[in-house]
């Protein structure tokens, strides 16, 4: 445990490294909990645990990866949710059996939107609506720029599972964003259909 008697260098390192990535830890906690208030609780508990065990952090390694792992453990322990996560994963898999025709349809709708600078809130909402296990991999790989290996370690799953969840999550996101484009009137269903025609 690090207390006020801990070396000043340790305290400074904790402040600079761990506290410097609180936004990232919060974003990951949000992906786990889907609830802002619960995410704040996870972040607070994560930092308390990180502070108490800072002496176990190896300098030169990825502090985000270390904190993400703690955050996931905090979340699982507080919710005892690991069993439910498996069920959510199955739901997600069933939801994304995209055919090639569907994929072309989605690409046709989404393609003209991708360069828009105001797409962020729609993407945020689409990520929030993903099944929990999909949200976690998308957040870690696509937003936090973690490798497949790091993501596998943080989530306690094989690299192959990271890869397959990521693929399904991305296809699901694309499908939802294409639907958002129609709902928001950014592209008509007819335009979408014609764009997807080879």
């Amino acid at each position: 445990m690090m207390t006020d008697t801990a070396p000043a260098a340790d305290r400074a390192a904790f402040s600079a490294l761990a506290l410097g990535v609180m936004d990232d830890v919060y974003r990951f906690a949000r992906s786990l909990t889907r609830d802002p208030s619960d995410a704040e609780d996870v972040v607070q508990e994560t930092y308390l645990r990180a502070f108490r065990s800072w002496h176990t952090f190896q300098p030169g390694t990825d502090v985000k990866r270390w904190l993400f792992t703690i955050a996931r453990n905090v979340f699982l322990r507080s919710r005892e949710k690991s069993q439910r996560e498996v069920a959510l994963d199955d739901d997600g898999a069933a939801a994304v059996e995209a055919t090639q025709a569907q994929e072309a349809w989605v690409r046709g709708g989404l393609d003209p939107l991708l360069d828009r600078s105001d797409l962020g809130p729609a993407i945020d909402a689409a990520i929030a609506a993903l099944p929990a296990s999909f949200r976690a991999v998308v957040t870690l790989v696509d937003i936090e720029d973690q490798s497949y290996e790091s993501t596998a370690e943080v989530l306690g799953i094989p690299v192959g599972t990271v890869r397959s969840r990521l693929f399904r999550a991305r296809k699901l996101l694309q499908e939802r964003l294409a639907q958002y484009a129609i709902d928001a009137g950014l592209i008509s269903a007819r335009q979408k259909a014609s764009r997807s025609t080879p």
Partner: protein
Amino acid sequence: MKHDPAMKDAVDCTGAMERLFDLLDEELDEGTVQRVKKHLGGCTHCFDRADFERRFLSAVAAVRAEGPMPGALRARVMAALRAEGWVG
């Protein structure tokens, strides 16, 4: 970094598309990267698909810049840490 022993020779459309996300996520070894890129350079269909996925991933990554953390949370965490003895 995914080493792909089956990728000694040129890849076709199926092989390139199977490895597309690995390529964009920088999870392939250098030799496989070159083979997949070579295919993409000569196949308009796969190139268009790769370009779409690359732009899609860039749009998703841009969400990071929006910084969703509530300002009060940082103060709350600092207060909890101080109660534990943190003096930063």
